[in-house]
């Protein structure tokens, strides 16, 4: 339903079974309705008593963060019920099987693996009590924390967060976790394995793939594209981008090629695809996360060849991803530069060519300590070429990617892109807009399903401040789209706190989320927002990926 690169926002949900209801096996028939109801009530009372919480059930309850004060005609102000936290404790994520076995936890297990196993058991039991009653537990609010549940049989997903974000946010995180897991094992395989063995320990299959999940969690903290289900491409001169794209188009009919993507600094430069195939933003996010995960990105190999499932495209099977990084800054230490001298008596030759000083110097190794993703790749100079194919032969794909890389090198495109990256042309700062009081914004082009956004600068260099403003954007987004069961959608939402003014604005062609200095007078806010829109329109050639060739 779209000719564009990206599919318009549809839900990221992928079910592993065809219908949501779980069918109880060996259900005991003569169950007493009365006692089941008693159990539920007892449970509710107990939880209320011990945690002073509200338990939300499957019916949609309003979790809108505040009352609305109608003020000016179009501008609605949200007042936040709770104070925003000053520090944002890391959210915790858990994945378990529907038997209650742990699959993944973002928490550092350490000595605690004992309590993890018990916690997973309790979660499964809690969810089962509600499921038994034909209901689904969605979340539990406990003081300032919310625990969100997502059921994707045979897996259950849990997130505990004290950030005060809308429920739709953590739910979407859990959905993405699910998609990433599907990208590793496929929905078909997952279903099949658990049909045969309900006691299966999925960690066996995910062994070695945890880095993908961790990098996804890191990414989701600050990634505005994921938050808005859109693409955030690298800013670039449109002619340069187009030149790059032209080199990616397969000249001959190479069977089964699906997407060819050029990436840099953690983002997409351009994407070439078959005419009738748009890519779903969620698939693209999963793919980019996979590519930039340390397992692939830090590999010293010249190329990786991995099976990956694109769950929105086809959750039942794998496609192949050929991934190669060009222009690695430390290219001296990769494969083809030097020749090894082998001596016939089997001893390494003295002064062997590949034992050069350059190579013995430390190669920058990404540590596993998480860094904020929005900065993590900004200083990286590599340019990645990715080819997604169905049954394509490795040699064919590799040979063709070789050709592409050489073309990009020969005609200077790689150089130009590198130059743009190193001279800061691939991102921009709010100061370039010269709008007083403007601190940051996210502009989403709805027809293109893409966003543009400046880098985070003061006061959002501080990570907690960044989390705060992102949470505000999410609150606005949620309210505007009525994602948490609010009564109606809104065109314009406005939040004023002592730290900043944030606003969300929905129109037919765009959505805009914007942060201002708290001192900006309200009368200036709309004008400033309009100025942003005008600027984006003027610069859109550079800001968005348009008219990429198809084949």
């Amino acid at each position: 339903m779209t000719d564009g690169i990206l599919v318009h926002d549809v839900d990221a949900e992928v079910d592993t079974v065809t219908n949501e209801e779980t069918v109880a096996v060996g259900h005991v028939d003569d169950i007493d309705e009365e006692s089941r109801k008693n159990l539920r009530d007892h449970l509710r009372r107990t939880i209320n008593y011990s945690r002073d919480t509200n338990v939300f059930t499957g019916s949609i309850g309003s979790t809108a963060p505040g009352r609305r004060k109608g003020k000016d005609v179009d501008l609605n102000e949200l007042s936040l019920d709770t104070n925003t936290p000053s520090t944002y404790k890391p959210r915790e994520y858990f994945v378990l099987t529907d038997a209650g076995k742990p699959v993944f936890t973002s928490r550092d297990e350490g000595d605690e693996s004992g309590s993890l196993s018990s916690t997973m058991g309790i979660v499964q039991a809690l969810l089962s009590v509600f499921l038994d009653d034909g209901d689904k537990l969605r979340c539990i609010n406990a003081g300032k924390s919310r625990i969100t549940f997502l059921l994707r049989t045979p897996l259950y997903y849990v997130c505990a967060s004290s950030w005060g974000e809308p429920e739709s946010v953590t739910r979407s995180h859990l959905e993405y976790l699910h998609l990433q897991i599907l990208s590793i094992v496929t929905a078909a395989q997952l279903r099949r394995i658990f049909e045969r063995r309900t006691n299966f320990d999925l960690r066996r299959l995910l062994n070695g793939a945890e880095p993908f999940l961790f990098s996804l969690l890191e990414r989701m903290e600050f990634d505005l594209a994921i938050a808005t289900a859109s693409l955030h491409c690298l800013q670039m001169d449109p002619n340069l981008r187009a030149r790059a794209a032209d080199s990616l188009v397969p000249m001959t009919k190479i069977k089964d090629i699906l997407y060819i993507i050029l990436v840099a600094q953690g983002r997409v430069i351009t994407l070439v695809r078959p005419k009738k195939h748009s890519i779903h933003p969620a698939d693209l996010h999963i793919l980019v996360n996979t590519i930039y995960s340390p397992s692939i990105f830090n590999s010293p190999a010249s190329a990786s060849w991995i099976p990956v499932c694109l769950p929105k495209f086809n959750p039942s099977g794998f496609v192949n991803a050929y991934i190669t990084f060009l222009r690695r800054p430390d290219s001296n230490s990769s494969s083809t530069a030097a020749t090894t001298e082998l001596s016939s008596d089997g001893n390494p030759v003295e002064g062997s060519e590949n034992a050069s000083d350059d190579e013995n110097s430390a190669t920058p190794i990404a540590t596993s300590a998480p860094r904020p993703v929005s900065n993590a790749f900004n200083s990286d100079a590599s340019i990645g070429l990715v080819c997604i194919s169905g049954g394509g032969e490795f040699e064919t794909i590799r040979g063709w990617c070789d050709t592409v890389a050489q073309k990009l090198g020969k005609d200077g495109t790689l150089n130009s892109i590198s130059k743009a990256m190193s001279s800061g042309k691939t991102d921009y700062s709010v100061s370039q807009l010269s709008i007083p009081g403007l601190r940051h914004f996210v502009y989403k082009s709805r027809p293109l399903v893409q966003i543009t956004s400046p880098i985070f600068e003061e006061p959002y260099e501080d990570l907690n401040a960044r989390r705060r403003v992102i949470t505000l954007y999410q609150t606005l987004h949620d309210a505007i789209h009525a994602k948490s069961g609010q009564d109606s959608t809104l065109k314009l939402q406005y939040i004023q706190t002592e730290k900043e003014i944030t606003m969300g604005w929905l129109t037919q062609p765009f959505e805009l989320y914007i942060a201002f200095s708290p001192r900006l007078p309200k009368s200036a806010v709309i004008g400033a927002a309009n100025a942003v829109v005008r600027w984006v329109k003027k610069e859109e050639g550079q800001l968005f990926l348009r008219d990429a060739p198809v084949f």
Partner: protein
Amino acid sequence: MGRVLLKVIILGDSGVGKTSLMNQYVNKRFSNQYKATIGADFLTKEVMVDDRLVTMQLWDTAGQERFQSLGVAYYRGADCCVLVYDVNSAKSFETLDSWRDEFLIQASPHDPENFPFVVLGNKIDVEENKRQVTQKRAMTWCQSKGNIPYFETSAKEAINVEQAFQTVSKNALQQEAEEQLYVDYPDPIQIDRESTQNYGCNC
């Protein structure tokens, strides 16, 4: 290879002493308060079995009827099951049969004949004349049900409890070892470039 987690269900009439047995077996009690509300308490115990570190996720389930409908969910994916009765209560022994049957029905293990059970006869420290179930009778039943290993124990004596769990986890591991993990990579998806990819909402 790697860490192993076994889901262990503990079944038996209320009053046979499951809870104190578990308390004794598991030094660090994690949760004590859920049984009345959700029908199970959860404990974790780590043991070495044949040089492998095994985490046992123990589901100490309530005996009451009102939690019966939860059996399917609670027993799902169990790797082994411990049946407990009180040697001084013939009734608690007689119901073992229904506990076992019910478990097999609700858990639906893929190989019910070989599903690892173990039976614990508890409270042997009570005076001999109070004893209602002889060892012989218990062992006969166990043998008839596929040679279920049988142990007798008391809350004061840890030894047999440990052995019982060692035995049942060993048997559970054996079941796991026999199973090959086949991950299929069927030929990668054939890309059909000619037809439009449909992302319609699947609601």
